[in-house]
């Protein structure tokens, strides 16, 4: 019986002694942290996506608390209201509202547009597939469909559509942090301005091959024909390496380029359905 009491006493003693040591160490070596940091961190999403350019949310909170001005400090997943609250905690003027961004995939190489030419049964990783060969669909620039970007996304905005075989981005969930863009081995994902009411026009292709070759590789590839460049009165479109690029800063969303593209490579999203088209659907 006494053995139990002795053990209890020893263990209890060790416990009390350890806690005492820990208490003293904690008091003695306590690092004073700006209380604002914890307050700001509370408001942040805590996803550590790196979209602000800092190493995680704590780093961003520290930067905000210690900054002299909030210019250039912006959490992509926080709206203006949260940014204003962060500014009030930091005691600074809120930064000018930034353009909300959204991730856009520059590829539309679905199973239909880009049939499977070879079979890949290696590890499901875009990076590995990219280093081994061109990919099952035979395009050196397009989406590989292994979903490395899905793993990088902390907000569940990316999903792989099994019907098309390419990644889709849920713009309601995307905060525009750019983690996916950094991950993609083929640099297919770009952060673009969300646009007014979410209206956007972009080229859904990244093929830099010459026209004839690009045409063979995919049904909806940009062949660099330049029709869109001629059509655009705002000088928003440029062609580099046989590939058109629409500058979202200059684009006025007139959609003229979309209708002249012979390859249907230019996508306009979130526009209301035209009346005639709606009528055709109803019929």
């Amino acid at each position, binding site marked *: 019986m006494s053995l139990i009491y002795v053990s209890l006493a020893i263990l209890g003693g060790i416990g009390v002694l350890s806690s005492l040591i820990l208490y003293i160490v904690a008091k003695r070596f306590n690092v004073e942290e700006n209380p604002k940091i914890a307050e700001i961190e509370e408001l942040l999403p805590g996803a550590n996506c790196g979209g602000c350019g800092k190493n995680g949310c704590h780093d961003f909170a520290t930067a905000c608390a210690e900054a002299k001005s909030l210019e250039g400090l912006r959490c992509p997943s926080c709206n203006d209201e949260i940014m204003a609250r962060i500014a009030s905690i930091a005691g600074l003027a809120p930064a000018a509202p930034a353009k909300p961004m959204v991730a856009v995939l520059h590829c539309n190489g679905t199973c239909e547009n880009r049939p499977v030419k070879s079979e890949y049964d290696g*590890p499901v*990783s875009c990076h*590995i597939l990219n280093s081994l*060969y061109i990919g099952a669909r*035979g395009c*050196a620039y397009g989406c590989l469909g292994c979903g490395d970007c899905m793993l990088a996304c902390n907000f569940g905005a990316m999903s792989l559509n099994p019907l098309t075989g390419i990644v889709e981005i849920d713009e309601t969930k995307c905060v525009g942090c750019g983690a996916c863009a950094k991950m993609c081995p083929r640099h297919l994902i770009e952060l673009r301005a969300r646009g007014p009411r979410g209206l956007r026009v972009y080229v859904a292709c990244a093929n830099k091959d*010459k026209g004839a*070759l690009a045409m063979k590789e995919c049904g909806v590839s940009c062949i660099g024909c330049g029709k869109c460049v001629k059509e655009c009165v705002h000088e928003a479109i440029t062609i580099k390496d046989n590939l058109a690029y629409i500058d979202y800063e200059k684009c006025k969303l007139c959609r003229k380029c979309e209708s002249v593209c012979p390859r249907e490579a230019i996508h306009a999203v979130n526009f209301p359905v035209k009346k005639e088209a709606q009528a055709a659907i109803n019929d």
Partner: protein
Amino acid sequence: MLKTFKKGGIHVPEYKLTAEKPIVDIPAPREVVVTFSQHIGAMAVCDVKPGDHVVKGQIIAKANGVVSANIHTPISGKVKTIGKWKTAFGYPCDTVTIVASDEDVQYDAEHGFEPRTEEEIKALTPEDIKEIVADAGVVGLGGATFPTKVKLCPPPGMHADILIINGAECEPFLTNDHALMLACPDEIIEGVKYIMRATGVNRAVIGVEDNKRDAICNLEKHLEGESGISVMPLKTKYPQGGEKQLIKAVTGKEVPNGALPISVGAIVQNVGTAYAIYRAVKLREPLISRILTVSGKHVQSPGNFRVFLGTPLKTVIEAAGGIPEDTGKIILGGPMMGKAIVSIDAPTIKGVSGVVLIPEDEARRTQENPCIRCGACVEACPMGLEPYMLMPLTENGEWEMLNEHGVRNCIECGCCAYSCPSNRPLLDFIRLGKFKVNEMMRKKS
């Protein structure tokens, strides 16, 4: 007791179906596609224009910097186009297409390269030989395609005291070096002598795995009366032909991590490279052809072929009886280190040591299972790494930790993935990790 390396290694089925086959010449095609990136290092810079007429052996792309190699045209003809062409792996690469007319074919048949006379060769200084090798665009023909000139010029302060000629050929199926050692022993020995002269080394060892007894005997017979060059039979074990493994087997010295073979006083060259150096120095012929093996369990007439660079792989495979119906995968190089290809329209390049056609039922990967911590991969790794650990580190993007675990020492031999009872794709991840860590280190420096 046969010599070998101590750490790791595996015994793979050999399948040397073409060991007895002679080297068959495949005639030069009328149209060749020559790519500018046939070696490790910077891509060569194009030196011709469309419409130009080029003569067999003329430089069409010049080496760009130190680690690069010249590219020569294998046939006489007219430059048809300069542009992108898809490599065997599907990625576009800069190429030149050369088409020969009837006169060009006639010219090539009548005009060969003018060999150097004995006096001319005697007059060559070591620097001259190095220059000839660089001009001829010779690269390591074992598969790594590292420019040979760089290997022949040790960094200042370093001195080589042994030349090791790699005739191990440990990859299953491949027999191109074997066939070469049987057919051209004198030429190889002559090439070895040129390398010895260029580097000032007076001892050379030709390391050959003992599954090639006939090649060992043949070389020994031709080496009678020669001093300084010897043949060393080695134990048959994969990867005996790895540079560091071969040095360990022959000299007993271990190359330190991250160091070059020259740090232990060794220079390693492949037998194919020695032969190419012979052709460059003696025959004045630049590297425009190579010997490769076309093999596979169901290939009709597998064999060893001498192929002009730029010949479509299709032509080479047809020479061996075409693609069997049940082929599931075509591999460039051996089955251990080679990569599966998607296009047989792609041209042959300097680094292609063989084409292996794998039947459908063996081409697929097997179901991957969780790691059971058996340590088979650790035992198999010839570099003393821990592959079971490197794979999850890569999956989690722990690049710093990967570097600490020595991922950069990986020679990508594939022993780990081969020996894994859970069929885990260890090498795929380790290769990715190695690439990422190298990228990180480059950024840092």
